[in-house]
């Protein structure tokens, strides 16, 4: 009945509209002001549409609006990103003031989950999200950086501070010995990496953490799923919004390492090798760190245009980022182009696209930070004639910088086309076809050069022939997804279901070659052509190597069926069942398919009648989930038994080589997916009308069937040391997550304070078979080939191992009384006889710390007062250790860290720092080099000021904000290196400081204008 009535009204309205065209005088005006409920501030840019028409307006900078009405206009619709859309009947009024409810404040926030959305109150999984305003706070190539300290359970570390370098992301601990990175789903495209995305184009990132949320991604969900939504225009948005942001920053080395100066080094050298320096007060003093680091600019510009017509919405984004490194000759430039369109064919059918194209250019510096760390301070960088001075054993870092030319560039395009149709009112059919295509190339050139010793002879730092190497790789994948969504509310029953069929194919190939002795050094000649490459003696070309193949981890096809249903009864009881069946070409036919189910329950206690009287509680929800998910990030290759070529038999007289080929080691056709079983229990709370919100989760994820390499019996003929991959390890991660936030508005002042944290308990449950062999996994090889990690049952993945120190042997009597290595002497470290067998040997090496933090936390504050805003983000971690690998490897005399100055020089002088030595015994991997990696970092401080409305309006602008920002301003840590953030993609070589490119501190200034 109601519907018919409405229809009649529409007809009447339509007729009236027809007339209105002729009778302009009949119109009236309505005005008002729109404010936000969270901070009571006026909201500029709010869309106001007369419902059922395309007519509307947008609020000005002060939140005011005026709209011409036509007879028949009945209802006004107010919409604004981040706020609940509000409708009100005009009912003859000519002034309507509206307060929009901020979505973040509402329980019925819509949460994006895999293949659909769900109301937050109906969610049974553990999902955390951050919005564009948080994402855009961080200026980085890697949008994931924005998750650091903002999402409980997510740990983000930088590999290094080199421009363009990636980050290491771990969701809820380290789940496998293999690739432990989460997957990213950008507008439906399943990807391994999102460094091609411009943060400014992202509207939200949701981290799916538990099995209920990730099982819909089946074999790829085990290490977490990060959903990324890019920006689109609002449907019905009448005004074209143009936003421009410019930011300029200066980066500098936040902290240098305390090393010995020239005089100190000379004194210590004289102790080790008496008579090395006659006058220690007269030696030069070079601060090598000072010579290789510079302050460097960073620029970031974004422009976005979004708008809508009745039939279409569009979003165009453009970004340019230019970052120079704090080490010369390192830089990164990226252009990002974004185009998201939706066309409404009719009420029921829409088609659209999401496209991103990102060309980039990167320049890499050689690892001069390690050289500067090692270079003796009493050597001088240049000779009197200005040529490079020799730096014994290390090489002159300035020369390496001067002669190194290493470039990478590429382009990545990711996009999809989709069609979406609503049928029978409740079903939405969607088909989407997407591609991810990228092309990368690299070139590296080193000219011929020689650094000379003071006596004029050539030093070891030289390059006899110029070297050129080039490589390229291309990657193409396509993903075709077909889903049907069903949404139905029948009285108290709310059903939300999705089913789908998807196919994906991924291919990647690389090609590379290297040559020597180019005819000229100039960049114009950096091509490998036989005619341009000459041998100094006989003019033959010296092409060194050519290689070509596929990337074994990026060569596979997948086919999947997926299903999920979310059922809510009376907004109180929720059940979710998820199921995905994946088939992958990475496995043999018998093991090709696997099923990944999950089950979850939720209870909105707050909606129970007995809760109605508890006023201070605004939300109370309990949820629990269980499920199995997989990890397929492994090589496609291990299943195959392949033929080994490149062998030779030598026959004939004189000897000549004849090619040979035969069976290589046997593959393992029985390989299956790594499977993670995860249980999650969550509690969500809201107090005082959700001014205080809290979320607690307990998680327990156990990964089984982890792929590791095991030794095979010799009689199989695989050859010595050849290992074969088996599903033969298990790892447990468990812990608690919490996320608390307080928001309040006091007149002109509003603020929000959030604190969140995660505990991680990581433990290896099983490695290898039942025999003693392969029951541990050794890794973390230092530059001298000595491993410093050992993963074994009961300890964390990649745990450090080595000797435990217990003071210094002060006297001969002490030395004689204690088991010691034959190399140990008075004044040397005393290693503990851990196994108590009365002798000191390799068996006394033991667990000496974990690279995995046991607690990671973030502390975030936002303040707003009138036109001023301030945000402060603090983040940190405790319990992890860093292995100071750069200090340990000392085959030759290098400079020392300053702590060596407190060395033992005689009985009683020190019981922690042994007598000075250039290497050897005291530098055996031990807990002396395992340093506390805990830190608290003031990660980001932003202070902004929005220009007054009248000023902005007079410039014909909607909004203008200027801000200053400081990133990595301050870090509280005991760690002696540049930064306690030591990443590492290889989980068994994690947390080892090999002498990394430091992360810089950045001070920047920015301006943001909305037209």
């Amino acid at each position, binding site marked *: 009945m109601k519907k018919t009535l409405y229809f009649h009204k529409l007809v009447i309205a339509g007729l009236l509209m027809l007339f209105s065209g002729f009778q302009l005088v009949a119109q009236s005006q309505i005005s008002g002001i729109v404010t936000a409920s969270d901070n009571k501030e006026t909201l500029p840019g709010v869309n106001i549409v007369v419902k059922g028409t395309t007519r509307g307006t947008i609020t000005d900078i002060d939140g005011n609006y005026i709209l011409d009405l036509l007879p028949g206009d009945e209802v006004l619709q107010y919409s604004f990103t981040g706020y609940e859309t509000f409708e009100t009947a005009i009912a003859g009024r000519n002034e309507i003031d509206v307060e929009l409810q901020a979505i973040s404040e509402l329980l019925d926030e819509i949460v994006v989950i895999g293949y659909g959305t769900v109301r937050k109150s109906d969610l049974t999984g553990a999902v955390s999200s951050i919005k564009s305003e948080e994402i855009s706070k961080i200026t980085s190539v890697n949008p994931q950086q924005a998750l650091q300290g903002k999402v409980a359970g997510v740990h983000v570390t930088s590999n290094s501070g080199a421009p363009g370098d990636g980050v290491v992301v771990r969701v809820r601990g380290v789940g496998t010995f293999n690739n432990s990175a989460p997957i990213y789903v950008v507008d439906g495209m399943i990807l391994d990496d999102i460094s091609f995305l411009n943060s400014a184009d992202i509207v939200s990132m949701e981290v799916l953490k538990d099995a209920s949320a990730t099982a819909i991604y089946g074999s790829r969900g085990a290490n977490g799923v990060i959903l990324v939504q890019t920006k689109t225009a609002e449907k019905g948005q009448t005004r074209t919004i143009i936003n421009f942001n410019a930011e300029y920053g200066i980066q500098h080395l936040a902290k240098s390492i305390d090393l010995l100066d020239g005089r100190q080094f000379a004194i210590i050298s004289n102790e080790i090798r008496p008579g090395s320096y006659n006058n220690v007060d007269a030696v030069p003093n070079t601060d090598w760190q000072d010579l290789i680091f510079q302050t460097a600019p960073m620029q970031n510009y974004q422009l976005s245009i979004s708008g809508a017509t009745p039939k279409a919405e569009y979003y165009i984004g453009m970004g340019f980022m230019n970052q120079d490194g704090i080490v010369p000759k390192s830089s990164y430039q990226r252009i990002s182009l974004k185009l998201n369109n939706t066309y409404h064919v009719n009420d029921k059918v829409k088609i659209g696209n999401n496209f991103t194209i990102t060309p980039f250019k990167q320049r890499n510096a050689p690892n001069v930070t390690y050289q500067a760390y090692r270079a003796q301070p009493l050597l001088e960088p240049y000779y009197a004639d200005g040529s490079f001075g020799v730096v014994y054993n290390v090489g002159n870092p300035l020369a390496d910088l001067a002669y190194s030319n290493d470039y990478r560039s590429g382009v990545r395009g990711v996009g999809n086309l989709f069609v979406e149709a609503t049928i029978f009112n409740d079903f939405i059919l969607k088909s989407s076809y997407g591609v991810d295509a990228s092309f990368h190339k690299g070139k590296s050139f080193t000219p011929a050069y020689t650094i000379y010793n003071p006596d004029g002879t050539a030093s070891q730092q030289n390059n006899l022939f110029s070297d050129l190497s080039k490589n390229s790789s291309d990657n193409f994948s396509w993903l075709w997804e077909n889903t049907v969504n069903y949404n139905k509310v029948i009285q108290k029953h709310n059903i939300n279901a999705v089913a789908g*069929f998807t*196919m994906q*194919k991924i291919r990647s190939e690389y090609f590379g070659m290297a040559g020597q002795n180019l005819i000229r050094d100039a960049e114009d000649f950096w091509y490998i052509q036989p005619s341009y490459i000459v041998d100094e003696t006989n003019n033959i070309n010296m092409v060194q190597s050519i290689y*070509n*193949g*596929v990337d074994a981890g990026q*060569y*596979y*096809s*997948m*086919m999947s069926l997926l299903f999920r249903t979310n059922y809510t009864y009376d907004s109180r009881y929720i059940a979710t069942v998820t199921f995905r069946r994946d*088939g*992958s*070409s*990475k496995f043999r*036919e018998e093991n*090709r398919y696997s099923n990944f189910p999950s089950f979850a329950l939720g209870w909105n206690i707050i909606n129970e009648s007995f809760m109605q009287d508890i006023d201070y509680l605004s939300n109370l929800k309990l949820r629990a989930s269980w499920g199995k998910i997989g990890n397929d990030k492994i090589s*496609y*290759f291990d299943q*195959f*038994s*392949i*033929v*080994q*070529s490149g*062998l*030779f*038999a*030598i*026959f*004939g*007289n004189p*000897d*000549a*080589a*004849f*090619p*040979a*080929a*035969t*069976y290589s080691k*046997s593959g393992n056709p029985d390989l299956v997916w790594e499977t993670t079983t995860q249980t999650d229990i969550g509690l969500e709370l809201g107090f005082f009308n959700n001014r205080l919100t809290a979320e607690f989760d307990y998680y327990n994820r156990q990964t089984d069937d982890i792929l590791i390499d095991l*030794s*095979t*019996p*010799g*009689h*199989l*003929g*695989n*050859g*010595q*040391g*050849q290992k074969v991959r088996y599903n033969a390890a298990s790892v447990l991660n468990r812990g608690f997550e919490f996320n608390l936030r307080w928001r309040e508005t006091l007149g002109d002042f509003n603020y929000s304070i959030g604190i969140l944290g995660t505990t991680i308990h990581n433990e290896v449950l099983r490695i290898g*078979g*039942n*025999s*003693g*062999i392969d029951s541990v996994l050794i890794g973390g090889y230092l530059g001298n080939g000595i491993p410093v990690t050992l993963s074994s049952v009961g300890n964390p993945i990649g745990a450090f191992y080595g000797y435990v120190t217990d003071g210094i042997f002060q006297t001969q009597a002490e030395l004689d009384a204690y088991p010691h290595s034959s190399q140990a002497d008075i004044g040397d470290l005393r290693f503990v006889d851990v196994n108590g067998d009365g002798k000191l040997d390799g068996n006394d090496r033991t667990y000496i710390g974990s690279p995995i933090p046991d607690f990671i936390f973030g502390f975030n504050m936002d303040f707003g007062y009138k036109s001023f805003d301030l945000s402060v983000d603090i983040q940190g971690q405790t319990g992890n250790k860093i292995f100071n690998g750069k200090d340990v490897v000392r085959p030759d005399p290098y400079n020392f860290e300053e702590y060596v100055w407190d060395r033992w020089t005689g009985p009683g002088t020190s019981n922690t720092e042994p007598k000075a030595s250039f290497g050897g015994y005291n530098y055996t991997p031990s807990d002396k080099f395992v340093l506390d990696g805990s830190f608290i970092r003031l990660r980001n401080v932003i202070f902004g000021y929005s220009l007054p409305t009248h000023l902005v309006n007079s410039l014909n602008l909607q909004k203008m904000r200027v801000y200053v920002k400081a990133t990595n301003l301050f870090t509280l840590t005991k760690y002696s290196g540049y930064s306690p953030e030591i990443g590492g993609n290889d989980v068994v070589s994690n947390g080892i400081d090999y002498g990394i490119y430091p992360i810089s501190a950045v001070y920047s200034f920015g301006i943001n204008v909305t037209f």
Partner: protein
Amino acid sequence: MKKYFYYSVFLALLLLSSCTKFLESNPQGVPTQEAFPTTAADALLSTNAAYATLRNWYYHSGGFPILDIMSDDAHKGSNPNDGLNTVGPYNNFSITPTQDGLDRWWSALYQGVKRANVVIEKVPEINMDEALATRYIAEARFLRGLYYFDLVRAWGGVPIVTSTTPPLEVSRSTKEEVYKLIEEDLLFAVLNLPAKGSYGGNNIGRASNGAAKALLAKVYLFKKDFINAEKYAVEVIQSGEYNLEPNFIDANGKNGQHGVESVFEVGAMENESALGNQYANTQGVRGTPNRGWGFNRPSLNLRYSFETEDPRLKGTIIDLGDVLDGITILGDGTTPDETYDDDGNLVEVECYNRKVWIPGTSTDTQFGHNRRLIRFADVLLMAAEALNENGKPGEALIHLNRVRERARNGNPDILPDIIETGKDALRDIILNERRHELALEGHRFWDLVRTGKAAQVLGPNGFISGKHELLPIPQNEIDISQGVLTQNPSW
């Protein structure tokens, strides 16, 4: 509506039918074992691969010449600290089942077995010239026999693998079963391999009928089946294909490679380690000229055992100060020229194995030494030994004295002809002749073991009867097998 239904059913079926194919993927750039060897060219490639193991450093007793080091002919060598705990313990029988090198040798021999098995199992299925196929298979069976012969001599009864897809766990067979397999393989090779002389050009160095017979003779010697040993050794001698190099050093040297004395040798190229053989580099002169690591130092015992003025002494040992091919041997600075024991007795002098010498000064060329696995002098001495055991000392002396005659090199004052005909005395003389003729070529330790003299000769070095005749099964192999493999007695 119905039409759309059929369309969708059709589409769904199409999708499903293409599914299995969609999820198939083959490895890129390399064939799989299912598709190899399938052509005549593949057959040749896989046969060649069975030979490639011979240049694997590990094939040569795990890399280091431990057989000579365990014998009374040699010490560890190199400088005192180099390989002290890895190679050193072989010198005084203080090795353990986890000793460095054991697993390398074990794995390399089985890798050779596997490569031979590929040919033996797959080549018969290939549609190709049948005679050629049979020759390839015979070559592979010769090599398989060669590899198993090392296995059975080093470890006794070992797991027998005759398939390319053996089970993960195979228990040890008896020594007799292993010998039976070797015998079958070599008899097949004898029947189906061509004579050495019929291999020409690019096939020089392939296993021949003569090589198979010589190896078979050796196998019978180890089995103490002297009748058969005599038969095959004499057949090789009577074939007329072989003779002794006039010059003793050419028997192992560059000049004699693939020469008249060579029965079976491992071809290797100079300059490039990928095509060379590190066997000689391991033992090459250390220091100046830098020809290698200097392992396998000839012992004083060996030096003093040579008969007066036997020219083979200088053909076996390089001393400091020697000038070879115009190059003065200065040796290694960090290695003492002379080593004394605690009582002040001279126990070692710095010297090197002459038999792996290759003219030149660079390290790389040393990789080009063609190791002679079987040479004619060995066959003559095997024949002599078998004939003596079979009660034919007269015939034995002919072959024995032929070896001595060559060694004498025309000097009538040295190395007189042997005239002894007493079986026991002649046996000792022949063993001693083997020592001097074949020193540092990997024969001595096993000769002592098979003749039962090991305890007597090597006892002072630590050899324990009933234990050290065999090496211990590598501990990691026992661990991986989870106890299926049992250790040799007393280890």
